[in-house]
C-alpha cells in the first residue's frame, strides 16, 4: 500500500488534491481511500489530507502517521510547530516541496529524497492564479510511479467539474496538470524501513479535578501570518494621496497611517489578500510576487 499525505493551508485545496489522486488511482484499477482532516479552522490554517492506494482492501483509516510520500504544498509549513509535515515519513520516503525552483530538483537529505519545484509559479504561468490543488495531485501521481497520465487528467476533470469549475478554468487546470506531470520525475521509492518507532501505551493517572479553562488569553497576536503571502502589496508613496481607503478596507487591520495619512503595512501580519491593491483608486499599490526559499 502507498500512503500519501498532503500538507497545505485552508483554501489551497489539499482536500481536492487528495481526491484527484484518489480518483486517479481508482480509475487505474486500484483500491483507493482519500480523506481530509479539518476542524473549525479559518482560511490559512494548516490542513492535512490523505490518499491511500492499494491492490488489497485497505485496513486503515484516518490520519496517516507513516507516509511513503509527503506533498508540502505550502513550504512555510515546514517551520510550523503544529503542522510538522515531515513527521513520520518513512525512511527512504519521498518529500515534495512546492518551493522556488524553476526546474524540478531532486536531492537526498538524510534518509529521504526531496523533490523541489515551484508549482505556484507554474500555476501563475499557466492559469494566471496561484492554484495549487490540481498540480499537487499531478506531482504526487507522478512521484508514485503507478498512476497513468490519462487517469490523472480524467480524475482532474471529474473532481473539478464536481466543484462546478467553468470550462475555460478547467481547460487551464488540465494544461497545468499535464505540464506538472511531465516535469516531475519518478524517483525509485525504496522504503528502507516500513516500521514506525513503537509508541508506548500508558495508563492515565488521575490528578484531581481538571478544568478545560484557558487562562493564557490573547496569544493570537503572537502568531505571525505574514508568511502566508504569495504576493506582497507595495505602496508607491509618490502616487499615494493619503485617501485612507486601503486603511479602511484592510480586513486584518495591518495597515496603519503615518502623520500624512499614508499607509504603513505591517508585513509581519499582512496575509497578502490584495484587497488594498484592488481598492486603491490611484493604483498606487502594486502586487509583487514574493518568494521564500526553503533551504
Amino acid at each position, binding site marked *: 500500500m502507498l500512503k500519501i499525505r498532503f500538507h497545505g493551508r485552508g483554501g489551497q485545496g489539499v482536500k481536492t488534491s487528495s*481526491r484527484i489522486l484518489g480518483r486517479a488511482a481508482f480509475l487505474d484499477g486500484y483500491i483507493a*481511500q482519500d480523506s481530509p482532516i479539518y476542524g473549525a479552522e479559518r482560511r490559512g490554517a494548516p490542513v492535512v489530507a490523505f490518499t491511500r492506494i492499494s491492490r488489497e482492501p485497505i*485496513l486503515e483509516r484516518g490520519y496517516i502517521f507513516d507516509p511513503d510520500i509527503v506533498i508540502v504544498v505550502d513550504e512555510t509549513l515546514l517551520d510550523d510547530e503544529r503542522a510538522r509535515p515531515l513527521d513520520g515519513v518513512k525512511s527512504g520516503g519521498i518529500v515534495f516541496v512546492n518551493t522556488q525552483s524553476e526546474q524540478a530538483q531532486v536531492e537526498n537529505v538524510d534518509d529521504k529524497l526531496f523533490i523541489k519545484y515551484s508549482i505556484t509559479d507554474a500555476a501563475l504561468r499557466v492559469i494566471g492564479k496561484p492554484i495549487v490543488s490540481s498540480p499537487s495531485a499531478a506531482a504526487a501521481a507522478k512521484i508514485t510511479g503507478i498512476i497513468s497520465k490519462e487517469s490523472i487528467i480524467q480524475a482532474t476533470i471529474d473532481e473539478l467539474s464536481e466543484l462546478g469549475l467553468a470550462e475555460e478554468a478547467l481547460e487551464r487546470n488540465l494544461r497545468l496538470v499535464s505540464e506538472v506531470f511531465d516535469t516531475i520525475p519518478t524517483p525509485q521509492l525504496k522504503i528502507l524501513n516500513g516500521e514506525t518507532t513503537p*509508541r*508506548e501505551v*500508558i495508563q492515565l493517572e488521575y490528578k484531581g479535578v481538571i478544568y478545560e479553562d484557558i487562562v493564557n488569553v490573547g496569544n493570537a497576536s503572537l502568531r505571525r501570518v505574514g508568511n502566508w503571502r504569495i504576493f506582497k502589496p507595495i505602496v508607491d508613496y509618490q502616487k499615494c494621496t493619503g485617501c485612507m481607503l486601503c486603511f479602511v478596507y484592510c480586513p486584518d487591520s495591518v495597515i496603519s497611517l503615518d502623520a500624512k495619512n499614508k499607509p504603513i503595512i505591517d508585513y509581519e501580519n499582512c496575509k497578502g489578500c490584495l484587497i488594498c491593491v484592488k481598492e486603491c483608486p490611484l493604483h498606487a499599490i502594486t502586487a509583487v510576487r514574493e518568494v521564500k526559499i526553503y533551504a
Partner: protein
Amino acid sequence: MREVEMMTGNTAAAWAARLADVDYIPAFPITPQTEIIETLAKWIGEGLMKAKLVQFESEHSMLTAAGTASLAGARVFTASSSQGLLYGFEMLYSISGWRAPLVLVNVSRGVAAPLTLEPDHNDVLSARDSGFIQLHAENCQDVLDLILLAYRVSEDKRVRLPSIVNMDGFYLSFTREPVRIPSKEIVGEFLPPYTPTLPFCPSRPVVKGASVLSGSLYTYFKHNMHESMIRASEVIDEASRHFEELTGRPHKPVEGFYLDDAEYVLVMSNSFTTIGKKAVLRLREKGVPAGLVKLVMLRPFPAAQLARLLKNRRAVAVFDQNLSLGLGGIIYSEVAGALYNERKRPETLISVIGGLGGKYITMEEFEYIFNLLQHPEKIEPGKPVFLFRKDELRAVENTIKLAGVV
C-alpha cells in the same frame, strides 16, 4: 454514474435515500452530517429526486415533522449528529411509540463539553432504549446497504419501528472509498413501496399517538414494541439473505473475522473495526490466535448470537468507543449480560475504552489489548482500561500548559 464510485459515507447515505425513493426529508445542519442534506438538496434541485426537503428551525421540530410525515404515509429520511440528535431526543421515543418506520442517519460525533467534531458513540448509544433499530456501519458501502436494509425492516408489518443507521464522522462521513451503487431495479425488487397502516386521511379520522394515562396500557404497548423489536432480528436475517441474493453482499447483525480457531477475541463496532482487523492480521502473523467480532446490529441486541460466537473462547475484550461516566463501556455491560447465562462463557472479559472523540488507535494499542487478554492478571477484573499513549500524553500536557491552567 459508474457502477462503482468513489464516495464519502455522507454521499453513500444520500445515495441510499435517493435509491429508496424517499418522499420527505426534514433537515437541520450540523457537522459532520450536513453534507448528506446538501447532496440531497442538490439532487432535488437538479430534478434527480422527487422528494420534498424542508429545513427546520431545530432538530426537535425536524424529528416531529419526520415522525408525523411517516404516519401520513411518506417514506421519510432524516439525519443528524451528536448535539443535534440530543436536541431532538424527546421525539425519538414518540416516533417509535407512534410506530413510524422512518430512517434516521446519525453521523457520530463526540458530545460536548469539551466540544469536538470527531466521532464516538455516546450520541447514538444514548438512543439505545428509544425503540429505534440500530445498525452501525464499518465502511461507506455499509452505509448505503444498511440504510436500504433499514427501510425494508422498519416498514415490515411485523416490525413497524424506526431505524437509526450510524456512521462515524470523518472516518466515514468525509472519507471516500469505492462504493457499489445498486441499480434502481435491484432496489425496487428489494424494497417494496411503503404501505402505511391507517394513514392520516380526511375522510376517515384517526387519532395517532393517543395518550393512555394508564400504567397498564403503557406497559401493554411497551411490551408490544419490545416484542416487535425482538422479532426485527429475524426480519433482518430474512432481508439480508434477500439482499445478498440480489447484490452478492452479505450483511449479518454480528460478523466474525478470523474467528474459527480464535482464542482471544475483540468485540467492536463501527469504522474502527477496519483498524482492528489489521491488528488481528498482524497478531496472526506473530502466531497469536486472535479474532474479532463486529457488532453491526446494536438494537435489537444480538445477545444469543454473541453468546454463541464467544463461548469457549479463552478471553474476550470489548472495545467501547463510548463512556458511561461512573460505569465504563456501555457495550461491555451488554456483552457481559449476554454471556452470563452461557455456561461455557469465557473466563476473562475485559473492558477497553478507546477512540473517544475520534482519538486514533494505533497498532500498539490494539496489541496492548491482546496482550492483556493473554495476561489478564495484570489488571483489575471489570475495571475499564483506557487506551492512551505516552506521545499523546506529552502533547496533551503541553496544550494544557499553553492554556495556562496550573
